[in-house]
């Protein structure tokens, strides 16, 4: 239960007590709102007293009469507007003229309840306003969370970029100072390590570009009917040199045609990432089997490898941003940690699913399901 503060500024005591009475036991409760709201009512008989209360105990909602003994209601309204206070103002007034309505609205009044009003009219207005307050709170919370997530991402990203740069700088200083003396193999090692770190940075930058494409949303999306098997062939052709270098065999299974409504580039990103991982984490002489099928409502993409596998406790983490599994087995494998994060985000936009099963030292299996509309044929 949340409580909203209501302040009534009206010079007529009858109005003030009437409003207090009506709203004292009033509750607003909608199924879509997670919380119910009740109200606590404060009263002020002049604009000046009202402003003092606003300063010391800010209300969420203000019921404001215009005709007051000292400063007028519209002046209180202006005060609130100038100070950019987050208060919803409802004008309650017997002297409702068009001129007043226009001025008050342009100064930020949300609603008008002309006197005399029935209890029901008051309650309806408050109900409406409460819904609005709730939605505003939710929006602010989401924006705040969004900001925090972005900040966290950027912090980790800057670390991921700084670390390789620092390493390279460190090695260069060691070389300049001839720290390894006459042992030339040590210098060769340092050069190899620097090249490795540079490769890592390049991969990170490319993956970041993919990530921005995914998270920036609609824009350049081109959804049309495509044959996933064609995309698989392209991805395998792209990966073939790499697979030869790692001595891993690539196999494609399933029908020749599996059609889907999707963006070509996005499907390529999914295939490229899954297949390149399957090669990267594989063993020499191993295989990667890619199978594309469908079962009526969904299209299914299976990528299986005979690689080092994933420990059960790591299975949940691998789809997170920047997560790379660091172990003795993955010591010499570079990666940005973004590949699977990008794949997952893409699959989410298609309302699909991705599952992974794995046995350490035996292999891993990634299963992607996409519930994609097929065009009417």
């Amino acid at each position: 239960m949340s409580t909203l503060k209501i302040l009534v500024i009206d010079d007529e005591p009858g109005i003030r007590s009437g409003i207090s009475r009506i709203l004292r036991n009033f509750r607003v409760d909608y199924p879509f709102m997670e919380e119910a709201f009740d109200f606590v009512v404060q009263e002020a008989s002049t604009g000046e007293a009202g402003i003092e209360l606003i300063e010391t105990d800010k209300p969420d909602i203000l019921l404001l009469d215009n005709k007051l003994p000292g400063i007028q209601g519209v002046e209180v309204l202006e005060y609130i507007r100038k100070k950019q206070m987050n208060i919803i103002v409802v004008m309650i007034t017997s002297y409702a003229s068009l001129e007043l309505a226009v001025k008050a609205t342009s100064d930020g009044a949300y609603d008008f309840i002309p006197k005399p009003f029935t209890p029901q009219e008051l309650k309806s207005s408050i109900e409406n306003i409460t819904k609005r307050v709730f939605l505003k709170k939710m929006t602010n919370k989401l924006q705040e969370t969004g900001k925090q997530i972005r900040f966290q991402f950027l912090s980790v990203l800057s670390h991921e970029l700084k670390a390789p740069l620092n390493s390279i700088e460190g090695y260069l200083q060691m070389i300049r100072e001839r720290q390894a003396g006459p042992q030339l193999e040590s210098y060769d090692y340092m050069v190899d390590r620097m090249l490795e770190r540079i490769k890592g940075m390049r991969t990170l930058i490319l993956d970041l570009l993919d990530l921005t494409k995914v998270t920036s949303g609609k824009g350049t999306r081109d959804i049309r009917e495509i044959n996933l098997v064609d995309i698989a062939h392209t991805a395998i052709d792209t990966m073939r040199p790499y697979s030869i270098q790692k001595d891993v065999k690539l196999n494609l299974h399933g029908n020749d045609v599996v059609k889907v409504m999707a963006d070509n580039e996005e499907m390529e990103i999914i295939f490229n990432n899954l297949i390149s991982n399957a090669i990267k984490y594989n063993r020499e002489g191993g295989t990667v089997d890619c199978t594309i099928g469908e079962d009526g409502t969904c299209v299914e993409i299976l990528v299986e490898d005979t690689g080092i596998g994933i420990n059960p406790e790591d299975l949940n983490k691998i789809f997170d941003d920047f997560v790379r599994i660091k172990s003795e087995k993955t010591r010499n494998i570079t990666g940005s940690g973004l590949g699977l994060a990008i794949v997952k985000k893409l699959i989410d936009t298609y309302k699909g699913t991705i599952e992974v099963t794995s046995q350490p030292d035996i292999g891993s299996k990634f299963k992607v399901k996409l519930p994609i509309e097929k065009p009417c044929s």
Partner: protein
Amino acid sequence: MTTKKTILIVDDDQDYLYQLKARVESFGFQTLLAESQKEAEELILKTKPDLAILDLMMENEDSGFILCYKMKKKYPEVPIIIATGVAAETGISFDINDENNRKWIKADLFLEKGIRKEKLKEEIDNLLIKMNS
């Protein structure tokens, strides 16, 4: 002839580890290396270093804190330096730059990664002297 002191270095960046090892050995120390919190925990069971330099974020966001806590429990007199990379730590919930938080951690020193060679040697020497007195 005094035996060389042994310094334990823990960091999950293998290049940083290689470079720090070379640097610390150039100061005249022996080194023990670990590339993860887990590896370090196993090492501590078998050996007692004269000083430890711990990276903060490894397989856990607070691996360095956990290791520091465990080491202080087992070897309260061994000085511990926690090495921080400032960019990494902004954004985590526990603010390492807060004085109060640092006191709570019980490390003997917090150093930023990338400090000058001479300064590092100075700090290590000071901590080892304090320990012996």
